[in-house]
């Protein structure tokens, strides 16, 4: 083996000499976390679908156009808008424009908080109608557990995301964090948005006619 060849092996990306994925370890760590969280939400949505199919008395037509569908559609658009502001924050961080990046991060946090407020209002409406985690007036008691469990875990992710973005905005604004930290927090925020893209049709829209 020649010396040049030996060096090429040691420094080759698949030999530990570099990054095979060409990304920093924080970003790779976030991608792996997202993968594990995809499994969590997939398992929950699969369990929801299993329960719904296997229970003939599953509550039907539970989400009227107002407030449920209007609210959940508005929540979806708000969450999508917050994803766009997050994209702008990452782009500003890439340009090293710390002031703009922090403003876009704050706008993203505002979107997350609006989503949570609308969601809590919608929860209270269902609670007023008698829906609880282990009982409801319409049929299978699993409905309440599945609804509050899945949407509650998602809302927890949104709230954690708002806190996370607040820390990143403060750290990036005071030059303690780097551009990559904004991008990594963006991955988390887009994932939260992505999960809702499945929760919304499976839980809300599939209960409009059936």
């Amino acid at each position, binding site marked *: 083996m020649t010396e040049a060849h030996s060096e090429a092996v040691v420094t080759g990306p698949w030999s530990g000499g570099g990054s095979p994925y*060409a990304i920093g370890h924080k970003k790779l760590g976030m991608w792996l976390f997202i993968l594990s969280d995809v499994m969590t939400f997939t398992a929950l949505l699969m369990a929801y679908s*299993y329960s719904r199919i296997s229970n003939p008395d599953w509550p039907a037509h539970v989400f009227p156009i107002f407030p449920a569908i209007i609210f959940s559609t508005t929540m979806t658009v708000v969450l999508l808008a917050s994803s*766009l502001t997050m*994209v702008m924050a990452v782009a500003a961080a890439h340009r090293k424009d710390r002031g703009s990046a922090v403003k876009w991060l704050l706008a993203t946090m505002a979107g997350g908080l609006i989503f949570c407020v609308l969601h809590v209002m919608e929860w209270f409406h269902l609670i007023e109608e008698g829906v609880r985690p282990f009982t409801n007036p319409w049929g299978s008691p699993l409905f309440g557990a599945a609804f509050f469990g899945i949407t509650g875990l998602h809302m927890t992710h949104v709230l954690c995301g708002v806190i996370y973005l607040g820390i990143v905005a403060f750290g990036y604004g005071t030059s303690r964090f780097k551009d990559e930290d904004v991008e990594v927090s963006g991955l988390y925020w887009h994932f939260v948005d992505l999960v809702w893209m499945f929760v919304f*049709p499976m839980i809300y*829209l599939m209960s409009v*006619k059936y």
Partner: protein
Amino acid sequence: MDAHEEMAASYGTHHGGSNKLYMTVWFSLVGLTLAEVYLAYLHFDPVAMLLMLIGLSILKAGLIVAYFMHLRFEKLGLVLTLVPATIFCIGMMTVIFPDSVRLMHVRLMH
């Protein structure tokens, strides 16, 4: 600048999108969402409705992952590590569904 910072500077913050592209993706996502809401008020077989809604959701998820999460602009090695494994694991979870249909028939008979 340490090794990690150098890598982040050279790789971690690389982008391939423009504002115009991101706005196009965003309007597509909003349009697909409104299409889903419209579909929900049409009369279809529940299985057909579920397949259409999930199909549109997968399309939306693909747009978010590819453009907002920049996976479209990452190395192919990362894409090949993340995407097939995720699809495989999600696919494995669907094996429970025939049992839910069996259970539904059992419960309807009693």
